[in-house]
């Protein structure tokens, strides 16, 4: 379990567990495939036969609506058979170990598991113990990684900004607990974004955050200055309990994205949020629903990007024209 398991001996992507170790080419290839799938969603018959006959299990040990739904739609548009399992309430509660749960489902000839778990490293553990023909996509493991979200965020940035070379990206909020932030920082680094900033009080920043290659700010105005892209993170309301922040009011006053604070960024800056949003806590409705918000396009893009990643790990790597219905 010590190495980067997501590549096979030939260097092909076998699992999608983390952004670590991905090449720029691989990410751009995902973008290319995803672009071809965008049109699939806009057609009347929203299906391609790339994963026909494959069984995909959405194995969610932690509740989720959006991510699970977009994975389900993505798999169905690839013509796979999809089963959704919310294990949080069943096996785990009965004392079954994580690996036993997976082994049982694997015995049902599953081809691809999409796994979400509240423990960092859970997707790695599973990937280390499945046979070679079974693939794992990490849909979020603890505070570690959410690589499909990061790729779809980067994809969304490219669609709105054209490229990455001259961008300043600011990520605001609960970085300490955010798997989205960890994966996004990595993917932006690989794609050549020259400046990534994180903005939060010190209690919500990991101790060694700058070793991730970002600049950290505690002041929203300074951090947003001249930014091209603003990524707002969800603040879990229970964060008051660990004495991490004093109150919702203080947090909103200092770090909530209001039209006034948005003016610190470039006039054409885009605003993103991986969802689900807390309106009035980390983001003002006027911004969330405003002209600079690309929060809903993120969701639409998420389906195409997840289709592309599924197709890639399942081995159905098809170029643009392959995305057309057969």
């Amino acid at each position, binding site marked *: *379990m010590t190495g*980067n398991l997501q590549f096979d001996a030939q260097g092909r992507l076998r699992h999608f567990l983390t952004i670590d170790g991905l090449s720029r080419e691989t990410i751009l290839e995902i973008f290319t495939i995803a672009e071809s799938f965008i049109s699939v969603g806009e057609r009347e018959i929203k299906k391609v036969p790339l994963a026909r006959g494959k069984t995909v299990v959405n194995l969610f040990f932690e509740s989720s609506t959006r991510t699970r739904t977009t994975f389900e739609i993505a798999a169905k548009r690839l013509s796979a058979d999809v089963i959704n399992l919310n294990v949080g309430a069943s096996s785990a509660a009965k004392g079954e170990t994580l690996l036993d749960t997976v082994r049982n489902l694997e015995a049902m000839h599953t081809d691809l598991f999409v796994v979400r778990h509240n423990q*960092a*490293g859970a997707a790695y553990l599973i990937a280390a113990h499945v046979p070679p023909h079974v693939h794992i996509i990490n849909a979020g493991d*603890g*505070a570690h990684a959410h690589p499909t979200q990061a790729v779809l965020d980067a994809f969304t940035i490219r669609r709105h900004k054209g490229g990455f070379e001259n961008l300043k990206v600011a990520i605001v909020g609960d970085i300490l607990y955010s798997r989205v932030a960890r994966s996004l920082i990595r993917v932006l680094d690989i794609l050549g974004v020259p400046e990534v900033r994180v903005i939060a009080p010190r209690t919500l920043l*990991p101790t060694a955050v700058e*070793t991730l290659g970002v600049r950290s700010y505690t002041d929203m105005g300074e951090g947003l200055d001249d930014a091209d892209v603003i990524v707002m993170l969800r603040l879990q309301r229970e964060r008051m309990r660990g004495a991490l922040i004093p109150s919702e009011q203080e947090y909103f006053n200092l770090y909530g994205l209001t039209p006034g604070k948005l003016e610190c960024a470039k006039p054409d800056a885009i605003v993103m949020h991986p969802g689900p949003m807390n309106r009035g806590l980390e983001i003002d409705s006027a911004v969330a629903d405003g002209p600079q918000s690309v929060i809903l396009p993120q969701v639409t893009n998420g389906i195409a990007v997840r289709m592309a990643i599924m197709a890639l790990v399942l081995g159905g790597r098809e170029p643009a024209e392959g995305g057309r219905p057969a």
Partner: protein
Amino acid sequence: MRLLIQGGHLVDPANLVDAEKDLYIDDEGFVVGVGKAPEGFKPERILDAKGRIVCPGLVDLRARLREPGLEYKATIESEVQAAVAAGITTLCCPPDTNPVIDTPAMAQMIQHRAWRFGLAFIHPLGALTKGLAGMELTDMRALNDAGCVGLTNALAPVTDTLVMRRALEYAASFDLTVFLHSEDPWLHANGCMHEGEVSTRLGLPGIPEAAEIVGVARDLALIEQTGVRAHFCGLSSARAVAMIARAQGRGLPVSADASAHHLHLTEHDIGFFDTQCHVLPPLRSLQDREGLRAAVQRGTIAAICSDHQPHEPDAKLAPFAESEPGVSALETLLPLTLRLVDENLLTLNQAIAMLTVKPARILGVDAGHLGVGATADVCIFDPEARRTLTAENMVSRGRNTPFLGRELRGRVTHTLVGGDTAFELGE
């Protein structure tokens, strides 16, 4: 059996011996001659030790045998066999068994079980507080009379500073040594690894260095207040050992050890969630490891121990934070210490001292030396023999070690306990 160990290189730091010398052992199991035969000595067996190192049997300051209560992980029998196969003849085991060793009866039971196998000497530590709950003192003097060589609250820090003060005062009244795992439990919180670069990357909850610093600072203040003799177990950070060095400089009666794996591994060895590197206290930064090594070199850290914690395989087959901490480490204690000699940190003589006479002095037991009159606890090893550690060739029931698949230098060929052969390497 009268035994002559012939032609070996005898390393006995307690007696300042480091030369090719024969060792003569009588049929009572005592050393009766070093370098020259006692008058009229006729050996019944001659053991050829040419090309090998002959040293006192190793003394391990901290090894969990898992009995009673956790026999699905290991037993006294299985682990004592692993110990003697690794040249260890004296083991000290912490009281965090189930039930806890907080009564004289429990202390005696452990020793009776060990005597039944007769392979190695086992010295328990008694609990500092009843049930390790940190509230009421144990019958420390009775535990000592029942064979406990010291007292500890193991990995459960006594959070109430007044109880801690009383416990240390009471132990000091009877000249008992207290073994401390100093840590602030609130700063530890739900952490499972060093808080730093790797925890930031992996998104795992970290244990800040400050957790250890605060714990050590508190305990040093109470040691100074009470005058108790104290031993700090398995420190993990450079700043904490620097505090111990200053305390020693001021004349406080404090000693410290390090586990062999903390002298070789860092947070980076966790890589992508390697649960075999999940240990407590955690593997820290490279600078911390260098600080521990410097403290070993200077003598601030007097002893190297295994901190053996055998587990069943399932204990490590879980997401990192949910896996159980600890390494099965008896069988790597000698090879990992010899690696410090290869890396020019220690001389062979110093390395052997840190595995024998120095830990024996910390425990206050008569072991770890081979002068005339000493009990013949002997470890003979081939310093050049190399082998790759595998789950199959490990003797311990626990195969949980990050060193699986690594080549280790130094192979024990014979272990004698009280003159009897406790282990002999087959061909």
